């Protein structure tokens, strides 16, 4: 891509290893990126269809997981049970 000639890939690790698309994707997905890396990847996606499609899909799955698999409340009596158990242990 044109960007790679102008600026070095900020994903290149200390060992000098060039990251694969999949590795960059995962860092993006897990939000383990610097703003510089994020910018680089966004540019990269413009020219890399597999990355673009996979990123869209993976983010959609992540969103779905968040919406569907959490947010439920613990049973209301649980806190009281914990408190009374601790009170027993202390006394």
């Amino acid at each position, binding site marked *: 891509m044109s960007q790679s000639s102008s600026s070095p890939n900020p994903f290149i690790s200390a060992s000098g290893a060039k990251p*694969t698309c999949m590795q960059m994707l995962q860092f993006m997905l897990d939000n383990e990126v610097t703003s510089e890396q994020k910018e680089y990847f966004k540019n990269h996606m413009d020219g890399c269809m597999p990355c673009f*499609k996979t990123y869209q899909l993976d983010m959609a799955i992540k969103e779905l997981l968040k919406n*569907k698999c959490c947010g439920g409340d*613990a049973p209301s009596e*649980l806190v009281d049970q914990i408190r009374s158990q*601790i009170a027993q242990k202390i006394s």
Partner: protein
Amino acid sequence: MIEESPRQHYTDREKEEIFNKEFLPHINSMYNFGYRLTLDRDDAKDLVQDTYLKAYRFIESFQKGTNAKAWLFRILKNSFINDYRKKSKEPNKVDYQEVETYYNSEEVDRQITPDLRVEALKDMIGDEISNALNALDVDFRTVIILCDLEGFKYEEMAKILDIPIGTVRSRLHRARQLLKEKLSDYAKSMGYKNADV
């Protein structure tokens, strides 16, 4: 425990305050974690209760104001392994060596295009994703919960799970592949005939 901080000394009032302000606010996340691990609401309650009792008992190894959530998650995970996993039959231990090799191989990038489409996900308005997650092997399920549901960073996950960061990453990668395979099956059953092109 998680940061190996020196033993603290707290008055009863301080303990109470830490417990109320730093530990209890995480109870819903803890319960969800417990439920996703045990897949049973009663077991989840017991597990969360055990975890909070342990957290209180070892409160002086927790440094006030540090990462209580990660500390609590680590206790819960350990309780699960020690107390629950032994009881249940879970013979299919994952071969992580294989996972690592897989992750580092050149083959991976070639199958980067998944056989699943964003449009298919939009129709998964029921329990499909939850069932798909629950069907994963517990070690794979765990990393998805910690990362995607709870937003822990690699470093925190490594501490919670007592595994190197590289293993966190490879396990996450594999977990996501497996999850996609399951979601792709759902998509096909919902009539997305060209789910796998």
